C-alpha cells in the first residue's frame, strides 16, 4: 500500500521535475543553457514555476461548458497516470499484477482522447475545437497500430501479463525480434503523448495552442504535467515491452528499470529537439499507409514463426 503511494508520488514528482529537465536538455542539445537563474544552476526553477502557475488567475470563460471544462484537465491528468499501476518495476514490485495488463494500458490510452476532446469542445473556441479534432483524428490513427504493435510481443510471451512479458525476454530482448513492433510502438507512443513531431493538437503556429488555449493557471498545469506523465508512462512501457524491463547486469533491478525509462524519456526530448512538425495530412498518411501495414506484417510474421516453432 505504502509502496503504491510512493510510486504514484514519485511519478508525479518526476513528471513535474521533467518540465525543467526537458528545458535544460533542450538547451544542451541546442548549444545554450536552459533555465539557470533561480537557485544553483536553475535547481529552484521548479519552485518558481510552481509559484507562478499557482498564483495565476484561474479563469473559466463564461462562454464555456463549465462542468466539462473543469473536468477535462483532471481526466487528462489521471488517465495515463493510472497505467503506472500495471508497470512492473522489478520482478516482485508491481502495484497490481493484472492478467490483462496490456489491455488495461490500451484502454487508458483510448480514454486519453476524451479529455482532449472535452477540453476542445467545452472551450467553445474555434481554435480549441480544431485542435481537439486534430488530436482525436491523430490519436485514432495511431491508436490502431499502438495496439497492433504490441500484439507481436503478446504472441511471443503468450500472455497479456506484464511480468510474463518481461520474463519472456530473459534470453533476448524484444527489441531485436520485434524491431518493427518497437519502432511503430515508439512512434505511436510519441503520438499518444502529443509530443513533437506529433504535436498537431497543440501546434502553436497554426492553432495558437490547440485544445488548451482557454486554460490558465493550475488547469493548464494539469494538462502540462499530464503530458510529462504520459512520457514517463510510455517510456516505462517501451522499457517493459521491448527492452527487458528490469533485466540488466550487475546493478539492481530498479536501477536498470529507471535507467532505461530515463533513456527513453531523453529520446523523446531528443526527437523534439531535432524533428520539425510535418503537415497534418502527411502525419495521417504516414500512420495509415506506412506504420499500420508494417505492424500487420510484423504481426503476421511473428505469428508464423511462433507456429513454426510450436
Amino acid at each position, binding site marked *: 500500500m505504502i509502496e503504491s503511494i510512493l510510486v504514484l508520488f514519485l511519478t508525479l514528482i518526476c513528471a513535474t521535475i521533467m518540465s525543467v529537465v526537458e528545458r535544460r536538455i533542450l538547451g544542451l542539445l541546442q*548549444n545554450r543553457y536552459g533555465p539557470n537563474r533561480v537557485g544553483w544552476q536553475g535547481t529552484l526553477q521548479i519552485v518558481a514555476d510552481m509559484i507562478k502557475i499557482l498564483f495565476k488567475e484561474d479563469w473559466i470563460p463564461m462562454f464555456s461548458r463549465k462542468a466539462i471544462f473543469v473536468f477535462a484537465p483532471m481526466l487528462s491528468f489521471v488517465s495515463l497516470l493510472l497505467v503506472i499501476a500495471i508497470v512492473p518495476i522489478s520482478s516482485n514490485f508491481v502495484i497490481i499484477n493484472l492478467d490483462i495488463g496490456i489491455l488495461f494500458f490500451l484502454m487508458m490510452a483510448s480514454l486519453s482522447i476524451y479529455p482532449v476532446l472535452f477540453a476542445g469542445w467545452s472551450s467553445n473556441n474555434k481554435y480549441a475545437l480544431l485542435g481537439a479534432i486534430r488530436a482525436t483524428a491523430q490519436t485514432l490513427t495511431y491508436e490502431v497500430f499502438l495496439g497492433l504493435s504490441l500484439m507481436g510481443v503478446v504472441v511471443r510471451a503468450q500472455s497479456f501479463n506484464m511480468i510474463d512479458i518481461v520474463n519472456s525476454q530473459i534470453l533476448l530482448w524484444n527489441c531485436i525480434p520485434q524491431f518493427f513492433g518497437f519502432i511503430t510502438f515508439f512512434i505511436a507512443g510519441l503520438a499518444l503523448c502529443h509530443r513533437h513531431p506529433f504535436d498537431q493538437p497543440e501546434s502553436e503556429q497554426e492553432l495558437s495552442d490547440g485544445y488548451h488555449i482557454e486554460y490558465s493557471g493550475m488547469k493548464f498545469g494539469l494538462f502540462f504535467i499530464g503530458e510529462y506523465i504520459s512520457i514517463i508512462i510510455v517510456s516505462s512501457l517501451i522499457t517493459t515491452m521491448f527492452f527487458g524491463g528490469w533485466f540488466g547486469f550487475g546493478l539492481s533491478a530498479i536501477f536498470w528499470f529507471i535507467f532505461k525509462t530515463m533513456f527513453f524519456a531523453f529520446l523523446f526530448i531528443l526527437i523534439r*529537439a*531535432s524533428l520539425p512538425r510535418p503537415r497534418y495530412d502527411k502525419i495521417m498518411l504516414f500512420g495509415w499507409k506506412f506504420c499500420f501495414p508494417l505492424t500487420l506484417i510484423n504481426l503476421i510474421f511473428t505469428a508464423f514463426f511462433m507456429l513454426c516453432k510450436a
Partner: protein
Amino acid sequence: MSIIKTLVSQIRSIWLTFINIFSKRETIMYPEKSVYLAPRYRGRVILSRNLNGEERCVACNLCAAVCPVGCISLKKSISKTNRWYPKFFRINFSRCIFCGLCEEACPTAAIQLIPDFELSEYKRQDLVYEKEDLLISGPGKYSDYDFYQFSGVEIEGKKKGNLDYESNPIDVKTLLP
C-alpha cells in the same frame, strides 16, 4: 521508397542534434560576463567636454534637426564670454533609435554615441535624460578636438586671425596697403 529516404534523413537529423551535446555552449552569460562592444558601437548618447573642461556643445540645433525620431530638444543661450551653449539639452531615450545621425551632424564633436547599452529603467519617465545626465567630464572619442581652435568663430579671448593657420582679416574700409 521516398518514405525510407525520409526516415533515414530524420534519423540522421536526430543524430546530428545529439552530437551537439558535446559541443560548446554559445550563450553569453551576460550580467556576469560583460559583452565586448566595438569602439564604434552606437549605444548611449553623451555630451562631451573639451580638454579645458568646457562643454563642447554650441547649441547649433543640427542634431535635433537631423534626428529622425525627434528625440532631442535643446535651447540656445549665450554666455558672458560670447560663447554659445545649450540652456537645456534633453534626449528622450524611449524614442531614440541610436542611428548616430546626431553624431554625424555635430560640428563640434559634442554629442557622441558610446559603447554602452545598459539603459533600462523601471519607469518610462526615467528615460528622459537632461543635460546633467548626458554631460560627461572627458572629451569622449575625439580627445584633442576643440571647435573654437579650428574654426574662425570669434569668442572672448580669441579674435579672428588668431589661429596659426589663419591670416588676419582684411579691413576693406581702409586705403592703406
